[in-house]
C-alpha cells in the first residue's frame, strides 16, 4: 500500500462515504420474478427426490413444506425490515457471536454452492430425457438408421447421468466466464423467464385437470406413518440401528418428521427474498410483503400442485424408474391427447426447465460471490480473494473458488440428482435455522426500529414473547437435527465443508487482525470519513460545474493525472469518486461504512491523493455504494451538478460503448436533469469527448448544404423572407415527428435501417472536433427543455 506522511487531525483528507445505494429500483413483480427463478426451479427436482426417499405419499409433504414456507417467508420479511447493515456474517455475529456466524456463513455457502450443481445436472436430466424420448419415438417409426441401431444393440440412448454432468459443466463454465467478465444481472430477464414459466404452469395445470376428468387418476396415499416407505438411503445413519419399515411404526411422528426433512428442499430459494430487498422500490416494506405473497402463492401452486399431479397421473411403473429426475416431463407425457402434442409440450417443459435451472446456476455464483465478498471485507477471508481482475475488475478469485467447488461437486455426484438433493438439503435447512435463530436472538438484543414482526407476539409483564418466531424455529431445528441423522451423505459432506470453511475463516481472521489494526491506524491518521446518506454538493463543499473523475484500479490513474494537468482546481473542483459495486441480487443487507470504505478503497484513495499532491492540487474524495458503475457515475454527476466526467478507457469496451452505457444510465435519472460531457482518456493520452443527454448533433457537411439550399428556396417564397435556418429544422423535425407517430412509421424505420446499413453505425454523441472541455463553463440547461433552471440548483 502506498503510504502518506502522518498528518495532523485538521489536515486529514476528508472522504465522503455515501451510505444509500445508488440503485435502479425494481417493482415487486420483478423482485418476485427474481426469487421465483430460484424457488420455482426446485419444482423440477424436489418431488422426485422426496418420493425416492419416502414413497408415494411424498407430494403431501411437499405441500406441507410449501405451506410452512409461508411462515419462513415471514421470518425473512422481518429480517429485511430491520435497518441493519453489514451482510449475513455481521448480522449473525451480532446475534450469535463469531463462531456461530462463521458456521452460519459456511452453511449458506454450502447451500449456494450446491444450488449450481443440482440445477445444472437437473437441467441436463430434462434435456437428455427428451432427446432419448425423441430417439425412441423416431425408432418406433423406423427413422433410426439400421447401422446405428446395430451399433447400440437396440435403440440408441444417451447415458443420462454422464450427459447431464457434461451439460452441467458446460453451463457452469459458461456462467463462470460471464461472471468473470461482470455481466449485469437483469430483473427484466427474470420477469421474462417467469412469464414463460407461467404460460407453462397454466397449460400444465389446465391440461392436467382435463386429463383427470378424461382418464381418471391414481390416489395419493395420505401422509400417515403406515404409508411411509423409506429407502435404505433415506434413513442415513439410522439404517444401522433400525429395520427400515419398523422405524415409522416405532416412532410414528418421527417418521413424519423424517419425511418432512426429505421434502424441505422444495422451499430452497426462499433466502433469495432477502437478496432482492435492497433493490425494491418505495414503499419498500409494502412491496416486499407483496412480493412475498406472490412468491409464496406461486411456488405453492406450481411446486405443490405439480407434485400431487405427478403421482395422480403418472403410473407407478414408470414414475420413479423412468421419470424420477424429470418428473414434470413425465407429467407432460401422461396428459390426455395425441403423442405429438405431448411431445411438443414436453419440449416446452424442457425449454422452461433449461431457462429457470440454468438461471439458478448463475444466481448461485452471484450469491456465493456476494457472501464471500462481504466476509472478506469483514476480515474473515484473506483480502487476496477480493483482488479485482486486471481487465474486468471483478472479484474473479472468489468466482474461481466458487466455480471450482461447483465443478468438483458436479463430478463427484456423477449426475445423481438424488445425492445432490440430499446434500443440498443440508445447506438449505441449516442456513434457514441459523437465520431464524439470529432473528430470535436479535428480538432481545436489537432494540432498533423494525418495519414488521412475525406474529403472534405476547407481552407479559413488559416482556415480549415472540411466539411466531419460536414456532418456526422449533420446526426448522427439529428438521435440521433429524436430517443430520437421516442424510448421511449430506451430513458428512456438509459438516466437512463447513469445518473446512470455518478453519479458513478463523485462520484468515487471525492473520488479518494485525494488518487491519495497522490499516485502521493509518486511515485515522490520513483520512476523515464523513458519512452521508446521499451524495450532495454541500457535503463535499464543492461548486457546480465541477469535474467528476471515477476511479477503480489504483494502477490506472492516468485519467486523473490528465485532469489535474489540464485543470485549475482553484477555478473548478475535482471530485474523485469510486463506486462500491455490489452486484444486483448479491447482498441481503446494505453495506456498513467500513465495508463501503474498505482497505481497497483506502489504497486507491491514498494513490489518488499522492497523484494530486504531485501536482500540488486539491481533490475531493467520494465513495458511493451502487448496483452498477454507470448508474452511480450518472447519478453522482447529476447530484453534484458536474459539467464533465473524465474516465479512463475500459478494458472491456470501447470509448463509444462506455458513452452509450453512461448515456443509458443518464436516461434513467428522473427529470429535471442536466447534460454533461464525458471525456475518455486513452492510455496513449488521446481523449474522446461525448455529450451525455440531449445536445446539438454533429451534422454532416452535405446535410448543412441541404439545409442551406432549403433555406434559400424557402426565403424566395413571398412572406417567408425572414425565415431562419433553425425554422427550417423545426418544420422538418415537426413533420418527421408527425409522420413517425402516425402512418409512415414503418417506412421511416425501413429508410433509417437502409441508411445505417449503407453508412455504417453513426458515432452517436461523439464530438468530432475533440474539443477539450476541462475548464469549460458549467453546463447550462438547454433552454428548449421545459424545466426551470433554478430547480437544478436546489
Amino acid at each position, binding site marked *: 500500500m502506498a503510504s502518506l506522511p502522518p498528518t495532523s487531525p485538521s489536515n486529514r483528507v476528508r472522504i465522503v462515504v455515501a451510505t444509500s445505494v445508488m440503485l435502479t429500483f425494481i417493482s415487486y413483480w420483478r423482485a418476485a420474478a427474481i426469487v421465483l427463478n430460484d424457488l420455482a426451479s426446485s419444482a423440477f427436482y424436489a418431488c422426485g427426490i422426496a418420493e425416492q426417499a419416502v414413497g408415494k405419499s411424498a407430494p403431501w409433504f411437499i405441500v406441507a413444506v410449501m*405451506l*410452512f414456507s*409461508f*411462515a419462513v417467508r*415471514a421470518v425473512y420479511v422481518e429480517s429485511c425490515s430491520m435497518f441493519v447493515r453489514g451482510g449475513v456474517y455481521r448480522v449473525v455475529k451480532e446475534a450469535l457471536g463469531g463462531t456461530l456466524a462463521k458456521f452460519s456463513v459456511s452453511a449458506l455457502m454450502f447451500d449456494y454452492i450446491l444450488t449450481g450443481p443440482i440445477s445444472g445436472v437437473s437441467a441436463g436430466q430434462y434435456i437428455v430425457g427428451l432427446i432419448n424420448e425423441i430417439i425412441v419415438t423416431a425408432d418406433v417409426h423406423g427413422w433410426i438408421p439400421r447401422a446405428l441401431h446395430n451399433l447400440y444393440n437396440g435403440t440408441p440412448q444417451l447415458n443420462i447421468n454422464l450427459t447431464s454432468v457434461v451439460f452441467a459443466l458446460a453451463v457452469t463454465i459458461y456462467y463462470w466466464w460471464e461472471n468473470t467478465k461482470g455481466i449485469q444481472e437483469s430483473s427484466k430477464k427474470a420477469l421474462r423467464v417467469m412469464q414463460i414459466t407461467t404460460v407453462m404452469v397454466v397449460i400444465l395445470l389446465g391440461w392436467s385437470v382435463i386429463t383427470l376428468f378424461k382418464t381418471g387418476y391414481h390416489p395419493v396415499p395420505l401422509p400417515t406413518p403406515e404409508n411411509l416407505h423409506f429407502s435404505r438411503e433415506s434413513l442415513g445413519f439410522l439404517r444401522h*440401528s433400525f429395520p427400515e419399515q419398523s422405524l415409522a411404526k416405532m*416412532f410414528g*411422528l*418421527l417418521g*413424519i*418428521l423424517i419425511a*418432512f426433512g426429505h421434502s424441505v428442499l422444495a422451499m430452497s430459494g426462499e433466502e433469495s427474498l432477502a437478496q432482492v430487498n435492497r433493490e425494491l422500490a418505495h414503499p419498500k416494506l*409494502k412491496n416486499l*410483503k*407483496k412480493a412475498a*405473497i406472490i412468491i409464496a402463492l406461486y411456488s405453492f401452486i406450481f411446486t405443490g400442485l405439480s407434485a400431487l399431479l405427478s403421482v395422480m397421473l403418472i403410473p407407478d411403473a414408470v414414475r420413479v424408474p423412468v421419470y424420477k429426475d424429470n418428473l414434470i416431463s413425465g407429467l407432460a407425457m401422461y396428459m390426455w391427447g395425441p403423442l405429438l402434442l405431448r411431445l411438443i409440450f414436453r419440449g416446452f417443459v424442457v425449454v422452461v426447465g433449461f431457462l429457470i435451472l440454468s438461471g439458478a446456476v448463475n444466481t448461485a455464483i452471484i450469491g456465493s460471490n456476494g457472501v464471500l465478498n462481504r466476509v472478506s471485507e469483514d476480515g474473515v477471508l484473506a483480502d487476496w480473494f477480493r483482488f479485482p481482475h486486471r481487465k474486468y475488475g471483478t472479484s474473479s478469485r472468489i468466482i474461481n473458488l466458487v466455480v471450482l467447488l461447483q465443478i468438483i461437486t458436479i463430478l463427484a455426484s456423477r449426475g445423481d440428482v438424488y445425492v445432490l438433493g440430499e446434500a443440498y438439503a443440508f445447506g438449505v435447512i441449516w442456513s434457514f435455522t441459523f437465520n431464524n435463530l439470529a432473528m430470535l436472538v436479535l428480538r432481545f438484543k436489537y432494540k432498533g*426500529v*423494525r*418495519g*414488521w*414482526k*412475525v*406474529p*403472534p407476539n405476547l407481552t407479559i409483564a413488559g416482556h415480549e414473547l415472540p*411466539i*411466531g418466531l*419460536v*414456532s*418456526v*424455529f*422449533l*420446526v*426448522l*431445528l*427439529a*428438521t435440521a*437435527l*433429524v436430517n443430520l441423522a437421516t442424510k448421511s451423505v449430506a451430513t458428512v459432506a456438509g459438516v466437512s465443508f463447513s469445518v473446512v470453511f470455518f478453519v479458513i475463516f478463523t485462520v484468515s481472521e487471525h492473520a488479518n487482525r494485525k494488518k487491519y489494526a495497522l490499516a485502521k491506524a493509518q486511515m485515522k491518521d490520513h483520512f476523515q470519513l464523513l458519512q452521508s446518506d446521499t451524495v450532495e454538493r454541500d457535503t463535499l463543499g464543492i461548486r457546480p460545474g465541477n469535474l467528476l473523475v471515477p476511479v477503480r484500479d489504483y494502477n490506472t490513474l492516468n485519467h486523473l493525472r490528465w485532469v489535474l494537468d489540464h485543470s485549475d482546481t482553484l477555478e473548478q473542483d475535482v471530485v474523485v469518486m469510486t463506486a462500491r459495486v455490489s452486484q444486483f441480487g448479491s447482498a441481503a443487507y446494505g453495506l456498513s461504512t467500513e465495508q463501503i470504505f474498505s482497505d481497497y478503497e483506502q489504497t486507491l484513495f491514498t494513490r489518488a491523493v499522492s497523484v494530486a499532491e504531485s501536482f500540488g492540487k486539491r481533490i475531493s474524495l467520494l465513495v458511493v455504494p451502487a448496483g452498477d458503475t454507470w448508474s452511480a457515475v450518472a447519478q453522482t454527476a447529476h447530484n453534484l451538478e458536474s459539467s464533465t466526467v473524465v474516465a479512463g478507457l475500459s478494458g472491456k469496451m470501447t470509448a463509444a460503448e462506455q458513452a452509450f452505457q453512461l448515456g443509458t444510465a443518464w436516461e434513467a435519472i428522473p427529470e429535471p436533469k442536466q447534460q454533461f460531457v464525458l471525456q475518455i482518456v486513452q492510455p496513449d493520452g488521446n481523449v474522446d469527448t461525448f455529450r451525455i443527454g440531449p445536445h446539438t448533433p454533429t451534422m454532416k457537411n452535405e446535410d448543412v448544404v441541404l439545409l442551406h439550399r432549403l433555406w434559400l428556396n424557402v426565403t424566395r417564397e413571398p412572406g417567408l423572407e425572414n425565415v431562419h435556418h433553425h425554422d427550417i429544422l423545426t418544420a422538418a423535425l415537426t413533420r418527421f415527428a408527425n409522420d413517425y407517430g402516425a402512418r409512415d412509421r414503418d417506412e421511416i424505420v425501413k429508410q433509417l435501417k437502409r441508411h445505417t446499413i449503407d453508412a455504417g453505425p453513426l458515432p452517436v454523441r461523439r464530438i468530432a472536433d475533440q474539443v477539450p472541455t476541462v475548464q469549460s463553463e458549467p453546463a447550462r440547461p438547454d433552454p428548449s427543455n421545459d424545466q426551470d433552471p433554478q430547480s437544478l440548483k436546489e
Partner: protein
Amino acid sequence: MGLLIVTVVVRILETMFVVGAIGSAVVLVLSGIEDLKLLLGLEEENRS
C-alpha cells in the same frame, strides 16, 4: 438404557416439531390475514 435415551431424544424432537407446527400454522393464518388486508388496501402498521 440406549433405547431409553433414543426414545427421550425422539420424543423431544417430536414435541418440538408438533408445537412448532401448530405455532407455524398460527403464523400462517395471522400473516395470511395481514396479506389479505394488504392486497385489499386495509392494512395497519405493525411497527415497533
